[in-house]
């Protein structure tokens, strides 16, 4: 239990993230975007498109992908990889769901150490 509390941080309840939608998590290390696909699965990515850093959290969620709001790259929510002809990868953030709460990898929220 203890190990978990250190590695993963409770960031909210499953219902806090709307279906086919997203929420942002602010952190010293930069924004993390949480997504919920139509089937209820939750994913976390750094909120930066591999193309020109567009905020992926603001895109349209379809299937298990999100379309970036700036230039329409389609990003896979699970891996962060750009789909189709585009190349690049948004950084995926580890996450787990327990008892209806979402836990995010603490390292993704901590400021980067030199």
């Amino acid at each position: 239990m203890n190990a978990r509390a250190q590695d993963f941080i409770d960031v909210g309840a499953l219902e806090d993230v709307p279906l086919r939608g997203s929420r942002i998590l602010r952190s010293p290390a930069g924004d993390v975007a949480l997504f919920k696909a139509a089937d209820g699965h939750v994913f976390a990515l750094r909120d930066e498109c591999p193309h020109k850093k567009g905020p992926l959290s603001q895109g349209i969620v379809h299937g298990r992908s999100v379309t970036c709001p700036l230039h329409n790259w389609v990003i896979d929510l699970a891996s962060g990889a750009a789909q189709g002809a585009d190349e690049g990868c948004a950084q995926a953030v580890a996450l787990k769901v327990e008892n209806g709460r979402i836990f995010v990898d603490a390292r993704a929220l901590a400021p980067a150490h030199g």
Partner: protein
Amino acid sequence: MSEKLVVIGNGMAAGRVLDHLLERDPARYAITIFGAEPRVNYNRILLSPVLSGEKTFAEIVTHDEAWLRAHAIDLRAGVTIASIDRAARTVTDSTGATTAYDKLLLATGSSPVIIPVPGADLAGVVTYRDLDDVEAMLAAARKGGRAVVIGGGLLGLEAAAGLAQQGMATSVVHLMPHLMERQLDAAAGYLLKGAMEARGVEVLTRANTKAIRGEGARASGVELEDGRFLPADLVVMAVGIRPNAALGKAAGLTVNRGVVVDDEMRTNDPHVFSVGECVEHRGQCYGLVAPLFEMAKVVAARLTDDPAPRYEGSFLSTKLKVTGVDLFSAGDFADGDDREDVVLRDAARGLYKRLVLKDDRLIGAVLYGDTGDGAYFFDLIKSGANVSDLRETLIFGQGFTNAGGGDPNAAVAAMPESAEICGCNGVCKGAIVEAIAAKGLTDVNGVRAHTKASASCGSCTGLVEQLLALSLGEDFQKASVEPMCGCTDFGHDDVRRLIKAKELKSIPQVMQDLHWKTSCGCAKCRPALNYYLLCDWPQDYEDDGRSRFINERVHANIQKDGTYSVVPRMWGGLTSVKELRAIADVAEKFNIPTVKVTGGQRIDLLGVKKEDLPAVWGDLNAAGMVSGHAYAKGLHTVKTCVGTDWCRFGTQDSTGLGVRIEKFMWGSWTPAKVKMAVSGCPRNCAEATCKDVGVICVDSGYEILFAGAAGLHLRQTDLLCKVATEDECLEIIAALTQLYREQGRYLERMYKWSARVGLETIRAQVVADAPRRKALFDRFVLSQKTAQIDPWAERAQGKEAHEFVPLKPVLAEAAE
């Protein structure tokens, strides 16, 4: 008969353990069962047929008195265990009596969740778990009246169907956008909703219960968060279950959500086993019987010292037990890019099947309408067999025969004869099919000549072609239509016509009835469908923000750095000291870096942080300003010049007319953006000749121009007509806009629509045909009723707050 086995809970799991145990070694234990329910053990999952009247209680008993006697089992029915003393190896019951054990089996099941709303404890509010609940519901049903079931999951729907069958007027209130969202995808959820409605059950989705109201001590109805009130004589709460683990926890057993057991079904005390819905195994709690039956085998083995069987978790499948509704789901049916979907839809037969494949293996299945192959698919999921050889025909099931799926003409074939195909000329399907047969027509031109269908705007051409294909079969070669996107074979026009003709009123419904190839569309088709539905059913359709591009979802324009710009309306380009002061104050208060005059005669505040948007809008609203829709596929600006008010050349009140048009038309959604302008004389200072709609005032009245553009393409407007009065001006412009709204393809600007449909066709409908113009105008006015609500004011007051407020991590202490 030396060892003492005490079983707590006389439910399905306990019953199954005892069956296996007695089979293995009937003489080993002296067995005592404590059951809180005052009756023998029965098949809980058959309570629904008892409720609906299809079975009696006697028919669902699994372990009767005779069985108890035959095995010398001591059942203490109606006696609850209050505590366990693990050191002394005794249990104490509600009467205070103590019983000793050598082995203890905890099989306490779970309890219904009661949502903590005011009134939850009123008489007339019941849950759905045991025979007492069923009897309470049947007693209520005998008096007739209304029932509201909270929860649209498996239990809620079975309760609702049963109550409706017993004659109550029944509604289901469900929080999520579609029914049984944990087992079904949106498409199947939509079909299920239709099936429940066909059984007389009203289904309200996205409905959040706020309170249960009462008269005296009895419930009288359910109040929803959105203010609706549903009168009710009976309220059934079926929102979920919670493992009954408190007894185990009090006894010091390891408990998370449920009593924690290992693969041997043992708790952290070697003398205590646990089984059923009260346990948590590898982090998982179950709510269906299949896993319990697998667990029961392992418990029985351990109780008889057989170390071989282990429990390693279960795959689940669900079937809904509502007579006449065939529905099955199993495994993981989420979308994903590492997965492939095989979807079969046959709208005419109400069929929907979806298989999810990953790495050539079947991992999930949703079946609706025909569940005959459920077991076959479930086996394939469980076995993890490679299905690459079967792939082509897998969806047709085990006995692949001649199921004709994937026929693009099926949707048209299923339309009734009376469905209107050509909206311009009012020609229905029957008339076209008849003409094809009677006159021996072989192509679209023939149909045009004989029926007028497709002869005007042409947007029904695709449908006419499909009717030709249906009538002529192989002989007909149709021109190819460009599909909306990869999710469908239909083009925009066909989708629009079918939405109207088949009265499709939601996105899942369109996707189902038009055989969409993906389960929830993509970023191309969803915004288009959302617009089409909003345009066609302004009073019924609920806008889907999740199918809108970010700018329209949050009512501001996203900038390249992720901040937003805010452009308030300045009617006709007019502003005032008060508005300018409010803009200045807002810019200062929220540190807005850039304030710019736009090319549309108003002011843009650029670089606003997303979190600040509602507060910025609140301040602008307070000064009387509303959203300028600078982000919208909708009306942007109406530019004006100073006109007769000041200008020495002005012929009419161009400023006043511009303001009037903008106040009348703001808020309307259109296929692409719409910009207008009114100039007071042909010098045209408001640049009316390059707008979607322009007006040039002249001495004798108003010239109405349209289909101009000055963006990616530069195009001068065409003259639509000339009118004498402002009122006529407004009527023509609204009718023109409405025609564009109804015929335009999503993202098709007015000038492109006009080029496709033809200036003469548009003029004929909007100018020459007065009744048609009036009808278009009336439809525009109707849709404005629901469109003219300032989206900023709504959000400043808290609507969609989750869009603007980031999540906050819970601090470490709280996470424990």
